[in-house]
């Protein structure tokens, strides 16, 4: 692979890897604190899948560059601006409905994303991984959609909480579908789908689920972005201090 192609693949793997790692981190924060024991089982399970995806993607990425010899270097030892995740996934959890709606938006997006990667991607390792990731992400989307409907439709209070969640998430959705320069290049090279190409399917499915939960999808505008360029929210630094604590406090140790 030529250097510019290597750089492109590496960047793409980081973007998706970071999305999964950071959402996995946030989801894992629920462990032991969920509203029911079933959810205390489901949320760590989903976090396990997401962090597992990140690990798999980083391990493909490090094979491309000689600067790295372990996926943990990517997960734990980058500076804030070197993480390329969406702003959506780094936001604090808020209440259960907020966490669920974020998971629903993200996993529904990723379901269509992986589906396209599994069909069109030129890079065999990612194409193969996409088949497994598609199945797991479809499950996350289904699980969270059921809760979105349940909470939206449940009681007056739960509907109000879900309205809050819809409004909390709204500024961060546009970034999911933003076609930046990288997105155009990677699409032209048959690497990753264009984010905007996922919008139609995503919107249809999300609207349908929200409607069953007596909720509406607001108009999607690009309000907040920057994550893909490494420009993160203030709270992201705290997330990293948690995530990186051991690797920073005890450098060069084996665990």
């Amino acid at each position: 692979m030529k250097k510019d192609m290597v750089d492109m693949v590496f960047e793409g793997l980081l973007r998706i890897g970071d999305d999964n790692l950071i959402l996995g981190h946030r989801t894992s924060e629920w462990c032991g604190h969920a509203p029911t024991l079933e959810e205390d089982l489901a949320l760590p399970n989903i976090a396990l899948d997401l962090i597992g995806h990140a690990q798999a993607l980083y391990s493909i990425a490090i094979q491309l560059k000689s600067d790295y010899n372990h996926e943990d270097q990517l997960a734990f030892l980058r500076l804030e601006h070197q993480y390329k995740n969406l702003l959506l996934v780094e936001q604090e959890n808020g209440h259960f409905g907020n966490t669920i709606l974020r998971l629903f938006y993200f996993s529904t997006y990723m379901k269509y994303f992986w589906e396209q990667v599994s069909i069109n991607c030129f890079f065999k390792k990612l194409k193969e991984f996409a088949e497994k990731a598609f199945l797991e992400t479809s499950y996350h989307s289904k699980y969270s959609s059921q809760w979105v409907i349940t909470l939206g439709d449940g009681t007056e209070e739960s509907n109000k909480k879900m309205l809050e969640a819809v409004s909390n998430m709204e500024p961060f959705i546009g970034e999911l579908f933003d076609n930046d320069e990288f997105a155009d290049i990677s699409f032209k090279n048959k690497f990753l789908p264009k984010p905007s190409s996922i919008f139609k399917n995503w919107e249809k499915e999300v609207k349908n689920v929200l409607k069953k939960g007596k909720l509406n999808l607001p108009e999607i505008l690009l309000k907040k972005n920057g994550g893909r360029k490494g420009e993160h929210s203030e709270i992201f630094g705290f997330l990293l201090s948690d995530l990186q604590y051991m690797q920073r406090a005890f450098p060069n140790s084996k665990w």
Partner: protein
Amino acid sequence: MNSDTNNSVNEIPLIEEFQKKIDRDEKIEPKDFMPEAYRKTLIRQIGQHAHSEVVGMLPEGNWITRAPTLKRKLSLLAKVQDEAGHGLYLYCAAETLGKSRLEMTEELLSGKAKYSSIFNYPTPTWADIGAIGWLVDGAAIMNQIPLCRCSYGPYARAMIRICKEESFHQRQGYEIMLTLARGTKDQREMAQRALNRWWWPSVMMFGPSDKDSPNTETSVKWKIKRHTNDELREKFIDAIVPQAKKIGLTIPDKDLKWDKKRNNGLGGYAHGKIDWEEFWKVVKGNGPMNNERISSKKKAWDEGLWVRNAARMHASKNQSTVVAAE
């Protein structure tokens, strides 16, 4: 406790048949006759066990976001998830005896029901995750393996699955300690400090000495329990001491010594005096983390009320839609 307490005269033949069944090593199933005291003992024991699994998620969950590597993070997540699963099987097993999960949860949150005191100790470092796996899960397995043959069928069956997972957790914990012990000076010290913190609480996990354990005799007769607290405790110490030596860690008991006369001449370790005052202090609610653990579970429960209400309401609406459609 006496098995014959509070049973009516009419029940005496049933109780005799029940005991014979147990003596023949047959299982008691949910719809079979059982003396009220047997039912209550099991509800208390299985409930406490379920609560321990659920509360036990907290000290370990404390390190998920800070786990040092992706591999360790994934193992810890999987482990904590297993514990939630164990909690679920156990609540289900207890429900077959006629008590609902909701009632048991309310008793946990109100402080009426107990859980294993071990989870009232803090996990200040990553090494505590290793120590919990190695020692706490190790002690739990010693307690739980005999329960796979417990006379109550649903509990015995749940325990078979739980024990398989717990022994995996114990190996994982020991492997964390082994890695730390072979690591840098800081890591070795971290491992030793964690062992110092968890040793005595783990030894106490088997409960009071046999002479102070009123439930043991009846539970042995009913085959809910097959070994006494002290027997299990000694077995645990005999298993762990060589493991600690192998990785160069020191058990924090200066009176620990090999005694070749123990176990009918097979040998075993004599241990130092256990601080039962400390044990009872923690059992009575004054351990380092009792308040935090229950407050944390209570907060999650209270904050989740709107979610559970919504789920109930949504289900009942759907139910009426189905009925209307019929």
